[in-house]
């Protein structure tokens, strides 16, 4: 297939169609509105359904219903809208319904602004709703990955019967790059648990209410076993120039693009810097992070937030080396030079 020049949000939306998704329920919010706009035109062309809900609360519950029928379905929003969806996400995870969620993050807290941000990292990876559950969370850093990780997200959702989030941001959503769609899309698995009308089979019930504590505990243990399997099988991380790196910059998503430029500039100045970019931020690629830092004497975690992934990096490295945090908040984007300065601070003060 030829390369197309597309905006990140549009590439993501087209990738969902490519993955066989025919149902989208959403609500407009900047900077993700290009996704519903694109799909309102595109989905009817392929026999699908686009429906604008009355709120994000309703949108996620429409996703719950559609996912319950076994259909591939997704929704997209931006930070405040994702907060509204958190109730429904908990129900979807509890009922083990596969679906894809997209957060094109913007500055927060509150109404915040519409500038790019990564401030929902903790929400996505640790606290998106009540109860013991996890999303699988994928962090793209290019328009190509907006497409590729979205397609993978649908496969993971079906494989683990779990909601999967693509954790994007306003930069990735709005920027344009060439993108190519792979021809090979795995067939979704059979879904004998779906509610479609009980014709010729025992009826199915999709339910998250389990009054007896022992029953609910068993449900939770089943979920945890599934998360353990995802941790075992699905961790992805890109390590760049880390083999001999003395200073490793860890970053995810669009911030990793900026960090990469800083690392390359540091190398050109003779500093042994490398980049560690977690692609799955849940499950967190702890082994790959440890591998990236095996020769490092310090790590700098750069994020467009107060410093959220930094705690996962510290856990992965078991505080073996100093881990510094360099974060920009409120939609401010760090520059490569600012990150380079952080690298240099550590370079001139060895052993910090």
């Amino acid at each position, binding site marked *: 297939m030829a390369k197309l020049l597309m905006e990140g949000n549009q590439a993501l939306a087209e990738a969902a169609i490519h993955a066989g998704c025919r*149902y989208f*329920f959403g609500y407009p919010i900047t900077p993700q509105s290009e996704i519903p706009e694109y799909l309102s035109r595109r989905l009817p062309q392929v026999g699908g*359904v686009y*429906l604008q*809900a*009355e*709120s994000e*609360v*309703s*949108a996620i*519950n*429409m*996703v*719950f*219903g*559609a*996912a*319950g*029928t076994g*259909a591939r*379905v997704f929704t997209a929003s931006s930070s405040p809208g994702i907060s509204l969806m958190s*109730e*429904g996400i908990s*129900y979807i995870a509890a*009922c083990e319904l596969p679906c894809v969620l997209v957060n094109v993050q913007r500055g927060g807290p509150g109404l915040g602004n519409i500038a790019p941000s990564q401030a929902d990292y903790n929400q996505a990876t640790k606290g998106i709703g009540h109860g013991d559950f996890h999303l699988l969370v994928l962090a793209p850093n290019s328009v190509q990955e907006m497409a590729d990780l979205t397609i993978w997200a649908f496969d993971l959702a079906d494989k683990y019967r779990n909601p999967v989030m693509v954790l994007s941001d306003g930069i990735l959503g709005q920027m344009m790059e060439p993108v190519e769609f792979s021809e090979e899309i795995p067939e979704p698995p059979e879904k004998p648990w779906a*509610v*479609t*009308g*009980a*014709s*010729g089979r025992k*009826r*199915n*019930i*999709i*339910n*998250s*209410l389990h009054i007896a504590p022992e029953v609910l505990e068993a449900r939770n243990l089943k979920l945890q076993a599934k998360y353990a399997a995802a941790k075992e099988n699905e961790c992805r991380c890109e390590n760049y120039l880390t083999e001999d790196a003395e200073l490793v910059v860890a970053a995810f998503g669009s911030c990793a693009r900026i960090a990469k430029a800083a690392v390359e500039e540091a190398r050109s100045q003779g500093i042994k810097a490398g980049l560690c970019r977690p692609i799955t931020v849940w499950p967190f690629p702890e082994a790959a992070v440890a591998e990236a830092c095996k020769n490092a004497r310090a790590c700098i975690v750069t994020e467009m937030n107060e410093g959220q992934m930094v705690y996962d990096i510290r856990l992965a490295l078991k505080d073996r080396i100093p881990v510094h945090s360099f974060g920009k908040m409120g939609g401010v984007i760090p520059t490569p030079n600012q990150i380079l300065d952080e690298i240099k601070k550590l370079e001139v003060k060895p052993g910090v």
Partner: protein
Amino acid sequence: MSKVIASRTAALTETPFHYCPGCAHGIIHRLTAEVIDELGLQEKTVGVASVGCSVFAYDYFNVDMLQAAHGRAPAVATGVKRVLPEATVFTYQGDGDLAAIGTAEIVHAAGRGEKITVIFVNNANYGMTGGQQAPTTLLGQVTKTTPNGRTSEANGYPIRVCELLSTLTGAAYIARTAVFDPAHVTQTKKAIRKAFEVQEKGLGFSLVEVLGNCPTNWHLSPGDSVKWLKENMLPYYPLGEFKVSEEVE
């Protein structure tokens, strides 16, 4: 030779209802199930249970079921129906669920003319949580959170759901009924049947509000609760068909 003159409808499971003695839910469940059965819809029906006394509806209706979050059943039903337009999709909701936390979902499902059927049970209080004020609680009615009776100054006025929804173009059939005597039970079944037929004909959104008595939380005997319903609820919540679109006629 003995012969069967009455039996459990196939659209109900064998599970005994958990409802309090005298509660209207059991009758309304049975009527809904009988209609599903008699219209031959059981194998293509997907039901959506809500949160409230009827939270366990998935144990009772012998069809594919989803259990939705509080108030969200119409949105969940929308998701199901948009994927499976040939399926029969219904929600079963109480007044706390539908008329308070789920107001946006029910209004917009009706506004869109979503081809689903809603069975709405109004017993003027939050039953499952122990009898607190609902949006449908009558002025003067004592509940756990209106200990001196609901007042318009402090708590506002009770919401009439049928009257509200019947103003929406997308609503094809809206009716209010009761089940306190055999004649009204028959009327309710007719209304529920009509609501499901509206869906089967693809005519739009249909809702039947059924006034139910709640002896436990009204602190009345089943007999007295019927009397209270007639004397207090009927004047404020008149029975009848509030919206019958031209296509339905």
